């Protein structure tokens, strides 16, 4: 019966591949890169493109990171995109209208006030997160509706504060530009992949990832999403922890708002438009389950990377970017299918 043994081992290999979300996502990344490289006459495969993918990744990753926590806990946060708009606008408003600063303040000189802007953005995000927590915990509104309300309110407030227009203030575009390793000629080999802002986003992602997978914060997040009754019965203060999760998601969205500010050099009321949907998509593609209890930070980071590989890849290959939504939809469907497969395998 060597034949059946052979089939079994192939099946096993396939199963273990599917069982390992991370390797599957890396595989998807590699396949996409090869396809885009082939169809773009090689232009896709350049440092510039990957640097840009990372710049996009940096804009969205914190929303996806926050969403991952929320989704693992069994909730959803639709307010993240509007929070980006609002916090970038509030940062701009404070610098321009309160402190009276202008776009003349540039470069290193702007760092002090930009640091302040980062704190203001995070604080703004925390306020949105706190309102979400109150709506969900105190008024007992389901997360979908609660965060839908703050989604609308934050978007509206961003428009009111900014008058609907970008508020241009102090900036340092070098923070969003890839840093090159000195001594290597960029014409020979371009080493400029990561901008300072992207590096900060990576660090924040790693830190939150460690708290999710190694610390009590994450354990409770999984426990609540897995079985909220069991979590409460084990003595976890479910409301308090849920509040923390939405606060973290809000703060991360606020920091993403600061990222948008630095990237555009202005606080724009439309800088977060539509971002929530991509954040949720990245989380699901990364393997999180909207039913709660399942999700990995690695998956989310790769899911986000895949989304923006698709965006840049389509542009580089010259395929109309209308295809982006279709490809994203396919990726989401595939991710859910993989999840179902894993469940079946797990049950065996």
């Amino acid at each position: 019966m060597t034949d059946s043994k052979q089939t079994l081992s192939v099946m096993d290999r396939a199963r273990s591949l599917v069982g390992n979300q991370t390797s599957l996502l890396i595989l998807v990344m590699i396949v996409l890169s090869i396809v885009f490289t082939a169809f773009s006459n090689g232009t896709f495969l350049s440092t510039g493109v990957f640097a840009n993918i990372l710049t996009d990744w940096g804009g969205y990753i914190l929303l996806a990171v926050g969403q991952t926590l929320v989704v693992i806990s069994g909730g959803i946060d639709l307010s993240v995109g509007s929070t980006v708009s609002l916090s970038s606008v509030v940062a701009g408003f404070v610098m321009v209208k309160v402190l009276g600063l202008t776009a003349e303040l540039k470069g290193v000189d702007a760092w002090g006030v930009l640091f302040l802007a980062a704190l203001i953005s995070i604080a703004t995000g925390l306020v949105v997160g706190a309102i979400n927590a109150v709506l969900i915990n105190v008024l007992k509104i389901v997360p979908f509706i609660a965060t839908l309300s703050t989604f609308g309110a934050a978007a509206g407030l961003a428009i009111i504060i900014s008058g609907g227009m970008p508020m241009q203030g102090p900036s340092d575009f070098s923070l969003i530009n890839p840093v090159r390793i000195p001594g290597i000629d960029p014409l020979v080999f371009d080493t400029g992949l990561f901008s300072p802002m992207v590096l900060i986003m990576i660090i924040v992602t790693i830190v939150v990832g460690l708290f999710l997978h190694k610390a009590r914060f994450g354990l409770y997040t999984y426990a609540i999403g897995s079985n909220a009754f069991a979590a409460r019965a084990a003595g976890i203060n479910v409301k308090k922890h849920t509040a923390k999760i939405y606060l973290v998601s809000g703060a991360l969205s606020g920091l993403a708002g600061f990222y948008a500010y630095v990237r555009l050099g202005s606080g724009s009321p439309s800088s977060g438009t539509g971002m929530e949907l991509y954040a949720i998509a990245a989380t699901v593609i990364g393997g999180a389950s909207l039913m709660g209890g399942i999700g990995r930070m690695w998956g989310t980071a790769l899911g986000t990377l895949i989304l923006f590989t698709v965006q840049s890849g389509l542009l580089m290959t010259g395929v109309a970017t209308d295809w982006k939504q279709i490809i994203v939809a396919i990726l989401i469907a595939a991710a859910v299918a993989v999840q179902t497969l894993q469940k079946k395998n797990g049950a065996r």
Partner: protein
Amino acid sequence: MAGEVIYEVKNVSKRYGSVVALDGASLKLHAGEVLGLVGDNGAGKSTLVKVLSGAHDADGGELFLDGKEVRWHDPRQALDAGIETLYQESGLAPHLTVSQNVFLGREKFVKGLLGKLGFLARKQMEEEAHHDLEAVGIAVPASNRSVSQLSGGQRQAVAIGRAVSWAKKVIILDEPTNHLGARQAGEVLQIVKAAKAKGLGVIFISHTLPHVLEVTDRVVVLRLGKIVKDAPTHLFDGDTLVAMITGTITELPSEKKSQ
């Protein structure tokens, strides 16, 4: 044999909307005693368990632990007071591992700053969880396996093991022999006896009346949210217990004789 009263319930009531689940129930649990709580489906046993464990706020009534009045607003308070509960519906988080479930709410942290930030001593907890469950006397699955991958009986074993290994005063077991084969059910009865020998108060709920008759010292019968009988186990036999639960008799033959 039985010691002091450790946990007392006075006149507890609880309704869910218009359903009266508990209607002025009172009982006393002594140290070193196994109390059987029986009643038909929907009699209110699990509701009483949740009031005792802090999972539900009662609408009225009082609780006394070691003679002092207590009020639970959260299961945490009851856990901290030494009361462990095995719930009828799953009290485990299926996506967590065995050891994560055993230590849920009572985690061990690594040393130093990281520990203060909440970083967990995973290896240590896995080893201790395995050790604790073994000590309780249950065949335990590997500590790092996800609960969702366990059989119903294995899950029940983990849940019982967790309750027993953490209990300091009282253990409440709501249908602990559910999902268990005959041999494993026998092991659970041994565990109950061991807990009693350690001086804990045990509340044992089961529809398997021979188990109740074998392991308990006293039986409390609930019917439609009311306690209709509270008597030493030796006064019951299988038939009288069934008759009492279903309400065909309201007094034990032995009581009639003694009148």
